[in-house]
């Protein structure tokens, strides 16, 4: 699998604030990545750096082997759908879709037309008079129909209702299956997208906490619930990421895959094993860092 993006030692300072702190990672071709993290973690800044919309304070970026800054060869192959995309003041939706094909070599008018109907975009309305969800729908359609070799979706669905979000996930998977490309999806709605992702990069306070295959993360943590004494004995020597308790009962979340034999042993010891979703794992890991001030 070839690498389409490589970042090494990437740092971005805004005055004294370090938004991205010495981050290194690679993005492989034709996979769906989740770029996850809390508000202000540095996700959008990283995407702006990767698309040449901002300059790094230090470090190297190679997109298709070249620097993206002011580089038409790179940018013609990149689609970046931003949460707060601005359109020219007097633009109606139909103007946006009339202009889009000239930016993207792989633009699919057929897909755009289909999605405009499905998302019920009011083509004749001024973009600035549209609802938040309708503006998001325009962005989502641009991102999908552009079929760019690398597509960034930065919180693409603010204001989109549940039906439209599901439509987005379904159309994304369908079109990706037929036209494989690299997709980087940044979102807070981790539960909704976790099954779509092949790889997860978790950012917290400008640094990478997790860079892992999504399948390896699934089931990599468990919550053990039971009598405090039994729970303590079971989690002894394991990587504990969260503790909770009430009376004589404990609930402890441990990081690390459990074997079938360990699961059976836990049940026989009267303990209950509760699966930890990707979203819960991410909440645990990102709050751990801030609350204890330590990096795992």
């Amino acid at each position, binding site marked *: 699998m070839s690498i389409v993006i490589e970042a090494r030692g990437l740092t971005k300072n805004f005055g004294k604030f370090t938004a991205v702190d010495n981050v290194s990672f690679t993005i492989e071709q034709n996979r769906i990545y989740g770029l996850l993290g809390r508000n202000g973690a540095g996700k959008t800044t990283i995407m702006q750096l990767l698309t040449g919309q901002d300059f790094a304070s230090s470090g190297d970026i190679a997109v298709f082997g070249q620097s993206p800054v002011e580089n038409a060869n790179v940018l013609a192959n990149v689609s970046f759908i931003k949460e707060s995309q601005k359109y020219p003041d007097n633009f109606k939706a139909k103007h946006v879709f009339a202009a889009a094909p000239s930016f993207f070599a792989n633009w699919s008018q057929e897909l755009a037309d289909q999605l405009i109907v499905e998302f019920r975009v009011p083509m004749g309305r001024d973009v600035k008079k549209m609802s938040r969800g309708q503006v998001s729908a325009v962005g989502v359609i641009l991102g999908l129909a552009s079929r760019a070799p690398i597509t960034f979706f930065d919180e693409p669905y603010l204001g989109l209702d549940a039906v439209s979000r599901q439509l987005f*996930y379904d159309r994304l998977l369908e079109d990706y*299956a037929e036209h494989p490309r690299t997709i980087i999806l940044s979102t807070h709605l981790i539960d909704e997208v976790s*099954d779509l992702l092949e790889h997860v990069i978790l950012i917290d306070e400008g640094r990478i906490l997790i860079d892992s295959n*999504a399948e390896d993360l*699934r*089931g990599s943590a468990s919550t053990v619930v039971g009598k405090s004494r039994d729970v303590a004995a079971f989690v002894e020597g394991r990587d504990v990421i969260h503790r909770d308790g009430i009376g004589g009962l404990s609930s402890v979340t441990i990081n690390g895959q459990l074997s079938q034999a360990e699961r059976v042993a836990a049940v026989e010891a009267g303990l209950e094993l509760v699966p930890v979703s990707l979203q819960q794992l991410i909440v645990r890991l990102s709050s751990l860092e801030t609350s204890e001030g330590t990096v795992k």
Partner: protein
Amino acid sequence: MDESRPIFVQIAEQIENDIIDGTTAEESQVPSTNEFAAFYRINPATAGKGVNLLVDEGILYKKRGIGMFVAAGSRARLIAQRTDRFQTEFVRPLLAEAAKLGISSQQLADMITKEPSE
């Protein structure tokens, strides 16, 4: 999908279940990776991993340019595998719970006999 286990394992199990209960006959075609991905709303690479797991085990085989098919004899093999696992996954937890409640082996045997079978 169950959150605690890898999705590709669950996809493989779902295909196995369909073979065991006869929904998918031996020598018949199974859905494509992309069809599984769309149906379960999962990443196609994940669906492919589940299908490949069964190809590696010889349960499914690939016909070039056509798709995936269930190998002859798969059903009997899967039933044998599941029967082996039945002891650890079902009988042991059952006995552990029975012991906790003070249910004797005789009582347990009676309960099982009384349970109307399908």
